[in-house]
């Protein structure tokens, strides 16, 4: 059995496409087997809704009269990059106001823009013959500005570590509040709903794959930063952070419910963004991988109170992690997710609705992603 993108899109256009979420398809494959399910199903939708710091937005404000070449830019007091063209900027999710403990950053500016709120723009320039103005102090909304598109250098981490804390004091990390003496552990993957755990070797996901991003349409643009492939696999999926995706999408299509600024105590600002990736069921192997369940996906627990070396302490399935407690050497550790499973499910269902309602077709990637990548360390050199 094999299908093509064109055949699947034709079925979408005629309203006949059979679409399941990555959760729903598990039962179908169990009941009918991979072969029959692969014949029946055209698309499986996935979803994830968690924190990813490597997020941000490109913005073009439009030119004022007289014009300014903005070199220093603040949006609601948050620093945006002033090293692009006159009225272009990039605001990173983790960028802060002058008060680093203010709890407001670039991610919140992005959320507020998408929510339609007025944003205070204050910018300064050197004043040149062609851009005479030296400062501007005004308010903008998403509707007022020419361009605003999210560009996230890294999203959709393919699995991630489970974090705990063996020390005597509470630590505050990007994996949340970790209580002393291993009283809790946190994890951050949508498991069986997660895009890259359903297509683990990126058979269908590559540059140009059209996706659900923050409530609108977006695209996969590139392998995400820190993309790597050399991670141990169990049941065909990696047991630690592995592949990632760089994503792009028009903020004017997005909804604030899927774009949430986060103020993570003791760590800083991050952005939670809802991502849904459709997987075309081109053959039986792709179908089989989409039927993966939480009890087949594993992640290693590590000690976040260790600053340098964090060896794996134990390995747990997402079924165990999601049960609310895990066992470590005879003691019970309570677990928390950092990524919204209910949100991931809502996204997979919404993307399914789009496809069933003929509003969303699938793209064949124009470039596939590398198969053999290792991460480099940063070396400290004198010269």
């Amino acid at each position, binding site marked *: 059995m094999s299908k093509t993108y064109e055949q699947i899109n034709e079925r979408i256009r005629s309203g006949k496409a059979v679409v399941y979420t990555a959760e729903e398809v598990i039962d179908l494959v169990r009941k009918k087997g991979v072969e029959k399910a692969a014949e029946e199903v055209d698309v499986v939708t996935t979803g994830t809704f968690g924190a990813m710091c490597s997020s941000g937005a490109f913005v073009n404000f439009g030119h004022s009269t007289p014009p300014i070449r903005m070199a220093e830019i603040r949006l609601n007091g948050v620093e945006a990059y002033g090293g692009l063209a006159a009225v272009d900027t990039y605001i990173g999710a983790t960028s802060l106001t002058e008060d680093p403990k203010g709890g407001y950053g670039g991610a919140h500016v992005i959320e507020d823009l998408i929510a339609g709120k007025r944003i205070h723009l204050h910018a300064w320039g050197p004043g040149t013959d062609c851009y005479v103005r030296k400062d501007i102090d005004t308010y903008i909304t998403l509707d007022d500005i020419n361009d605003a598109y999210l560009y996230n250098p890294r999203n959709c981490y393919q699995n991630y570590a489970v974090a705990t804390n063996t020390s005597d004091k509470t630590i505050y990390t990007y994996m949340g509040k970790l209580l002393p003496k291993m009283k*809790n552990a946190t994890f951050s993957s949508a498991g069986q709903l997660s895009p890259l755990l359903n297509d683990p070797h990126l058979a269908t996901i590559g540059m140009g794959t059209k996706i659900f991003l923050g409530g609108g349409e977006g695209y996969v643009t590139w392998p995400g930063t820190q993309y790597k492939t050399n991670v141990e696999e169990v049941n065909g999926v990696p047991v630690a952070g592995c592949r990632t995706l760089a994503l792009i999408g028009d903020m004017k299509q997005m909804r604030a419910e899927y774009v949430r600024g986060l*103020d993570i*105590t003791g760590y800083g600002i991050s952005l939670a963004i809802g991502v849904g990736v459709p997987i075309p069921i081109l053959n039986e192997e792709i179908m089989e991988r989409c039927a993966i369940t939480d009890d087949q996906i594993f992640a290693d627990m590590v000690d976040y109170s260790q600053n340098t070396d964090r060896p794996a302490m134990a390995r747990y399935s997402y079924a165990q992690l999601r049960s609310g407690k895990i066992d470590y050497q005879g003691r019970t550790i309570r677990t*928390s997710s950092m*990524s919204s499973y*209910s949100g991931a499910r809502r996204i997979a269902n919404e993307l399914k609705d789009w496809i069933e309602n003929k509003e969303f077709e699938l793209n064949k990637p124009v470039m596939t992603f590398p198969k053999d990548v290792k991460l480099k360390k940063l070396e400290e050199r004198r010269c």
Partner: protein
Amino acid sequence: MEMKFKIDFTESNVQDSVAYILVSEFDLKPNVLKAEISGDGTGIMIVSLTGEQDKLLKAEQRLKEAGFVVSELGRRIMKNEDLCFSCGACVSICPTNSIKHDPETWEVILDTSTCIACGACVNSCSRHALSLDI
């Protein structure tokens, strides 16, 4: 009506059965939300009591006279549903398991009947959706 109390035990009364007094003398229904004895022999109990108002007040007086330090928990945790996106970071922080995932929807839910308003969850929430209302 229902009231929540924090009862502090000293080394001398840590063996006494507070629950027995509450049930047998005042016909109250206790629900122990948290109980802990520390290494020095002292302890605390957080208990939710349901019963008639005058009996609740008399029971509080009775325990105070018996040497317990009794204080009513008047604080409560508020959860702003518009801000929460149900990540679940707070779930494993709550000492009384009052914050849980709904097993069907996986939305994060706060059970105010067992919450002791200790406030531990407040700074675990990156959305500032949890706050302590005093």
